[in-house]
């Protein structure tokens, strides 16, 4: 990806590379005081200076190869990960992409000031060309940082989606022979499939005779969700377990009736406790208050 069209001669690019190498220490020292480096490398200032040097080495490498406007230049590869970490740290601190881009842009000023000081006696036009080349290069650096943050965002979303799939399916053994799944949130096709699979697996693993599907955390029960519940109940029944759907709130109950869904074949209970009581009674287990302390039902 290219930033803009500037004509930078190979000589200017090479000179820029030499300058970045020569002034590596000074620029890194100044960068270490900018918000971007100071707030990311909090342990020691030396750490920030070293990180700045790594970035400068990359910039010098890119300048030497003359690909000032190319964010895909091989020179950036060495610092891409570090830049991504820095941007992520700033992002965690609550900065938006434009603020992060602004902070990266702020690195240009100290470098340009040093460059102008170095070239004070050179011809005005040449100084201008070098400063322009450095500005282009710093613009490309900003682009590289933004690319890493966008990539990190995509990765984060993919990882969270995966986590969400797993979170959707905690199958809990409530009692010997009784498993329960609390369903939470939107039931789309991917999640419903995972829920059904893990419930059926739990029925086998725990040798469960009762499976409770609790829909307290499901905001909307439409025909799609109802149909999924019916399918799960039917599948569990085939495996010898009786399913109980619990957590049907008054508003949901009225909605199901208006929709015309017939849940008559499914055992339903208002709350999870009622469902558990039903499952225990079905197994002939009677829960009564302990006669003495320490003598629980189990």
């Amino acid at each position: 990806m290219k930033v803009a069209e500037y004509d930078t001669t190979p000589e200017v690019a090479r000179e820029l590379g030499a300058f970045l190498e020569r002034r590596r220490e000074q620029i890194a020292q100044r960068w270490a005081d900018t918000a971007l480096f100071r707030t990311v490398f909090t342990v020691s200032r030396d750490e920030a200076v070293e990180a700045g040097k790594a970035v400068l080495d990359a910039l010098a490498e890119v300048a030497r190869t003359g690909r000032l406007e190319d964010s895909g230049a091989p020179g950036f590869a060495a610092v891409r990960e570090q830049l991504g970490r820095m941007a992520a740290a700033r992002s965690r601190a609550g900065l938006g992409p434009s603020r992060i881009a602004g902070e990266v842009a702020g690195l240009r000023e100290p470098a340009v000031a040093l460059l102008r000081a170095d070239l004070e006696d050179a011809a005005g036009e040449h100084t201008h060309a070098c400063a322009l080349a450095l500005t282009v290069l710093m613009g490309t650096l900003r682009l590289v940082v933004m690319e890493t943050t966008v990539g990190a965002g995509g990765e984060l979303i993919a990882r969270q989606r995966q986590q969400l799939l797993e979170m959707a399916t905690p199958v809990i053994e409530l009692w010997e022979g009784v498993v329960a799944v609390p369903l939470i949130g939107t039931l789309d096709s991917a999640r419903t499939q995972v829920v059904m699979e893990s419930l059926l697996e739990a029925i086998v693993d725990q040798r469960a005779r009762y499976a409770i599907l609790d829909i307290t955390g499901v905001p909307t029960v439409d025909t799609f969700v109802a149909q999924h519940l019916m399918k799960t109940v039917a599948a569990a029944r085939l495996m010898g377990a009786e399913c109980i759907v619990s957590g049907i709130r008054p508003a949901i109950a009225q909605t199901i009736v208006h929709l015309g869904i017939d849940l008559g074949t499914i055992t339903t209970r208002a709350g999870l406790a009622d469902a558990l009581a039903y499952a225990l009674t079905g197994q002939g287990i009677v829960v009564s208050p302990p006669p003495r302390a320490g003598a629980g039902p189990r």
Partner: protein
Amino acid sequence: MHAPPVSATCLPIGSDADLAQVRQHVRRIAADLGFGLVQQTKLVTAVSELARNTLVHGGGGHMEIIRLEECGVRRGLRLSFVDAGPGIRDIDLAMTDGYTSGDGLGLGLSGARRLVQEFVLDSHPGRGTTVTITDWVSGVPSPRTGTP
């Protein structure tokens, strides 16, 4: 209708994630307008059915939201589900409980009609389908009007 539209917004319906977005949006606006919990739940469920129809049968489309305000007398919400899909050839059959062209329960359309106060289905084979539902914030139950 004599109620002047106060504001209109448009949400795309093109994926499973959009369905969740649409439901949440309607729930938020309905709560904002003062719909009770039961009415909110019914409305959002109807929205879920119709939006899924738009996605599955209409091949995607969009939902239009219009807040209605009748000079401080009553407030409501009008939602249109628009697709440019194959359309519905036999509307009476499609509105029959238990009839489905897919593998659903066949209760989506007819059920959605029972969940809201006004329901208008407009479909032209080959040109698409528009379903418009309207619900008013009700202190007292209002008569059901607008049969298709």
